[in-house]
């Protein structure tokens, strides 16, 4: 996520009426990159966990203990 100092700079420029279209595109590019990175982190976590075990598989695991 863009750090709060950067966001605040953008905010102040927007409120002063000095935030250009190019800077706004930069804001969007940062946000898009963050979203994609978060999606990839989420997918990686799900892949590590693997598919959910069935009830039978869990019972077999319990019995083998």
């Amino acid at each position, binding site marked *: *996520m*863009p750090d*709060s100092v950067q*966001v605040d700079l*953008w*905010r102040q420029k*927007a*409120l002063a009426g000095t*935030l250009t*279209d190019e800077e*706004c*595109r930069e*804001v*969007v590019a940062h*946000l*898009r990159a*963050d*979203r994609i990175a*978060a999606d990839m982190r*989420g997918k990686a976590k799900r892949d590590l966990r693997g598919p959910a075990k069935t009830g039978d598989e869990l019972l077999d695991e319990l019995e083998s203990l």
Partner: protein
Amino acid sequence: MTSFPAIVDSTIMNNLRNCLRKMQLKDVEHWKPKGTNVHLHAGAAFAHGLERARRSYYEAQNDASTALAHGTRALMEAYGDYQPPDGSAKTLERMLGALEFYFAEWPLGSGAQPHKMPSGKYAIEFSFAQPLAIRHPDTNEPIIYAGRSDMICDFADGVYIEDDKTATQLGDAWTKQWDLRSQFTGYCWAARESGIKTNGVLVRGVSILKTKYGRADAITYRSAWEIDRWLNQTIRDLERAKTAWGSGYWDYALDDACNNYGGCCFRDICKSEKPDEWLPMNFERRRWDPLERTETLLEA
């Protein structure tokens, strides 16, 4: 200044239907909780961003990247210097991220497109103010029903009202809650009064959490008889409010309405034997204008 509303909207009607006493406090005497509600403030800023992006793309014919840049700036301007409560997910950063997410999920130029009105204008932010067949108790003028939907759109060979919602949680319950929602029936009625035939309402939901976003879509339909029933019921409900105004006594709900959705903001007031002494401590008087969509601070 205490006055019976000359203009009502879906929020005032919801207050009326939940609890007449709540309507009296909020919409007749104009008591509102002190401070800014983060959900309302962030939601309004988000709506500004959506509107600006759509106008930039469809009206000004800018490309999608420029349009989103314009929407992003508009959101920042509308959010302003507001600092949300600690722990809130609706910070400026998260709302900006939500706007980028929205147009990634529902890209400009595809799917539902703004409907072109007979005037040639695109129906972005469809505002309306229509007279009802019920008279104001003091002025005797027709009470006005006002509102604003985010868009009227062409979608799947039909014409739909479109409304965007921000939420903390989406799911089956979110999708199913719209079928009888008065706000949307009112939109369909207003469109009909404006000469626009609509098939129903397309609702888009974006959930904004601290680490992720989510989306949901729902379509809800309104038949002509449902719209007629809504109109009749709205007038009947306003008659009840007029009776309360005339008698000086506004009925209390004293039931689930007091506790739903996090609890009514006047719960502590209604627990007090002397509410007038407590109101100025945590509330201030601000009058909401449904047409101008502004709030004006009043004297206590």
